C-alpha cells in the first residue's frame, strides 16, 4: 500500500499491539479484588512523571476533577497528555505539568480561549502540540480498544490537521478511495469519573458516554472515581448497564461531587460561579497560581476541598441537576 501523505506531527506515544496484549495478559488481574483507595494513593501508585495520561469526559461534564486536582497536589510533571478538555487540562497547563499534547480542543466553551493554554503554548512550556479532531482522537483509542494498530477514516483529509498530526493517507485497497490511517493510542494512565461503581471497578454511567468506552479499553492503567460505591449485587442485577468491567480497572476512588464545579447528569448541575471564578482568576499567571493555591495546595484532599466549597453551594448544584421528568 503506497503512502500518499504523512503527517509530520510526532507520535508522542509509540505503541506495540503485541506488547499491549502481553500487558493485558500479565499485568491486569482477573481476580475480584477490592480496589477502593483514596485519590492520593491512586495517583501516587499509578501516575508517574513523564507518563502519557488522559481524562474523560471533559472539564465541566462528568470530569474526574478530584483526581485532576490530586495530580497537581502531588506535583506530577512532564506529562504527555491526550487533550480534550476544559477545566481539568487548563488546570494542569496552569500548574506547568504538561510537556506534550495530543490536542483536540482545550477551550472554556462559552467563556472562550483559555488564557492558561495560550500562556503554556505560546511561551514554549508545552514542547509539542500534535493536532487531532475529536473524532480522530477517539478513533485512535477505538483502534487500541480493538487491538489493532490503526483505523482508516475520512477525517482530517486535505487539511493542515493532517499535516500536523501523525496520520497517514493511503488509497483503500478495496475501493480505491483515499483514507486517513489513524495510529492506535494506548495511554499509560486514564482517569474516568462515573456515577456508580462497585469496589472491584465495575462501572455504571448515566447520560452520554462521551469516549469512556474507548478510553477505558485503550489504557494500561485505569483510575475510576465514582459518585457512589454500590454493592456488586446491584451490578449483577443490571449487567447491561456495565459500561466498564472491573478487569479494566486498577483503582476505585469514592468521590462524591467528583466532577464539581462541573456537572454530573441527574445528580448535580454545574456551578456557574465556580467555573467563572477560574475563568476570571486564570486571566493572569498570578491569578491562576492563587486559584491553585486556594483550591488545591491549601487543602489536603477532596474532602477538604468540598469543605472549602461549603454545603450551601453543593446543595444548590444538586438543585440545578438535570431531571428526567
Amino acid at each position, binding site marked *: 500500500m503506497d503512502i500518499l501523505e504523512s503527517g509530520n506531527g510526532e507520535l508522542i506515544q509509540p505503541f506495540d499491539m503485541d506488547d499491549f496484549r502481553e500487558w493485558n495478559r500479565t499485568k491486569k488481574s482477573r481476580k475480584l479484588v477490592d480496589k477502593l483507595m483514596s485519590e492520593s494513593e491512586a495517583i501516587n501508585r499509578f501516575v508517574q512523571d513523564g507518563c502519557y495520561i488522559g481524562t474523560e*469526559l*471533559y472539564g*465541566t*461534564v*462528568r470530569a474526574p476533577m478530584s483526581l485532576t486536582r490530586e495530580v497537581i497536589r502531588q506535583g506530577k510533571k512532564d506529562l504527555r497528555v491526550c*487533550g*480534550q478538555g*476544559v477545566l481539568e487540562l487548563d488546570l494542569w497547563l496552569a500548574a506547568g505539568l504538561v510537556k506534550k499534547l495530543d490536542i*483536540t*480542543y*482545550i*477551550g472554556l*466553551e*462559552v467563556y472562550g*480561549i*483559555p488564557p492558561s*493554554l*495560550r500562556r503554556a*503554548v*505560546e511561551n514554549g512550556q508545552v514542547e509539542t*502540540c500534535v*493536532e*487531532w*479532531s*475529536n*473524532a*480522530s482522537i*477517539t*478513533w485512535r483509542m*477505538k483502534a487500541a480498544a480493538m487491538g489493532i494498530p490503526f483505523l482508516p*477514516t*475520512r*477525517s*482530517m*483529509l*486535505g*487539511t*493542515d*490537521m493532517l499535516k*500536523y498530526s501523525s496520520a497517514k*493517507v493511503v488509497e483503500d485497497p478495496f475501493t480505491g478511495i*483515499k*483514507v*486517513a490511517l489513524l495510529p492506535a493510542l494506548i495511554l499509560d494512565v486514564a482517569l474516568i469519573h462515573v456515577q456508580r461503581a462497585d469496589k472491584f471497578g465495575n462501572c455504571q454511567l448515566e*447520560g*452520554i*458516554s*462521551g*469516549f*469512556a*468506552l*474507548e478510553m477505558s479499553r485503550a489504557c494500561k492503567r485505569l483510575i475510576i472515581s465514582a459518585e457512589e460505591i454500590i454493592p456488586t449485587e446491584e451490578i449483577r442485577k443490571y449487567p447491561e448497564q456495565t459500561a466498564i468491567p472491573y478487569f479494566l480497572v486498577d483503582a476505585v476512588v469514592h468521590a462524591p461531587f467528583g466532577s464539581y464545579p462541573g*456537572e454530573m*447528569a*441527574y445528580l448535580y*448541575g*454545574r456551578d*456557574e460561579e465556580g467555573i467563572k471564578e477560574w475563568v476570571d482568576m486564570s486571566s493572569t499567571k498570578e491569578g491562576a497560581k492563587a486559584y491553585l493555591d486556594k483550591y488545591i495546595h491549601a487543602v489536603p484532599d477532596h474532602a477538604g476541598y468540598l469543605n472549602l466549597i461549603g454545603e450551601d453551594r453543593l446543595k444548590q448544584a444538586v438543585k440545578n*441537576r*438535570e431531571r428526567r421528568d
Partner: protein
Amino acid sequence: MTEENYSKTELMICVAARLFEDGATCFIGTGVPMLAAMLAVKTTAPNLIPVFEFGGTGAILEELPRAVGEARTFHKGISALGICDTMETAQRGFIDYGFLGGAQIDPFGNLNSVVIGDHDHPKVRLPGSGGGNDVGSFCWKTISIMQHDSRRFVPKVDFLTTPGFLKGPGSREEAGLPPGTGPTFVVSTLALMDFEPGTCRMRLKSVHPEVSIEDVISNTGFELVIPDLVDNTDPPNSEELRILREEIDPLKFYI
C-alpha cells in the same frame, strides 16, 4: 415588519436560524450555533433533530446548553450515546447540516480554529479543531457563522482546520472527502454569503439592514464574488427577538 433595535449578534443569530431546514439532522457547535438552532426550533424548524458531538441526539432544547456535552444536549432526547456513535453516523452520511464557528475563513470557506501565526511558534494559540474538522468533512452541508471583519475574512487561513472547498472545484474529492459535501452558507454580522457554483468562491447573497455592499467589500480581506442582484436581509422581527431574549438567552451569555 416592525422597526426594532437589535445587536449585530442578535441579527446574525436570527439570519442563521432561518437557514435551518425543518426535519433535518444537524450537528450543533458551541456558542452562536446553539442559539440559532434553538430559535429555529421555536420558529421555522420545530422538527429539527439536533446532534451534539459527545453523544446527545434529538434533545428538546428547552434551555441553552453552555457546553456540547452538558445534560441540556440530551434533555428528553432520543439517545444519549457517545462520540463514536455521532461521528460514525456523520461519516456514513446521516447528518444533513453542520453549523460551525471559527477564528478565520477564506474565499473557499476553509476555517481556522487552531492558531494565529505559525503553528510551532503561534502568535495566538486557539482551542483547536474539536469536532470542527469532522463536521466540515462529513456533513452534507456546512454553514459557518462569524463576525465580519478583514482580520477574520482572510485570503488564506493561517491554519486550515476545517475543510471548506480547500483550493477550489474538485479539491475536496481529490483529497478523499465524501463527494457532494461542502460549505453552503456563511452568516456574518454584515451579510449572508453563499458559494458560486463553478468557482467555489464565496459570493455575496444579501446585505443586512443598514449595511452597504461597499461596507461588506471593505471588511473582507479577499475579493468576494458580487452578483448582479444582491438581496437585502430581512431584519429580525419582534417575535424572533422576544424568543431570543426572553426564552433562549435570558442570562445574556451571548446576546
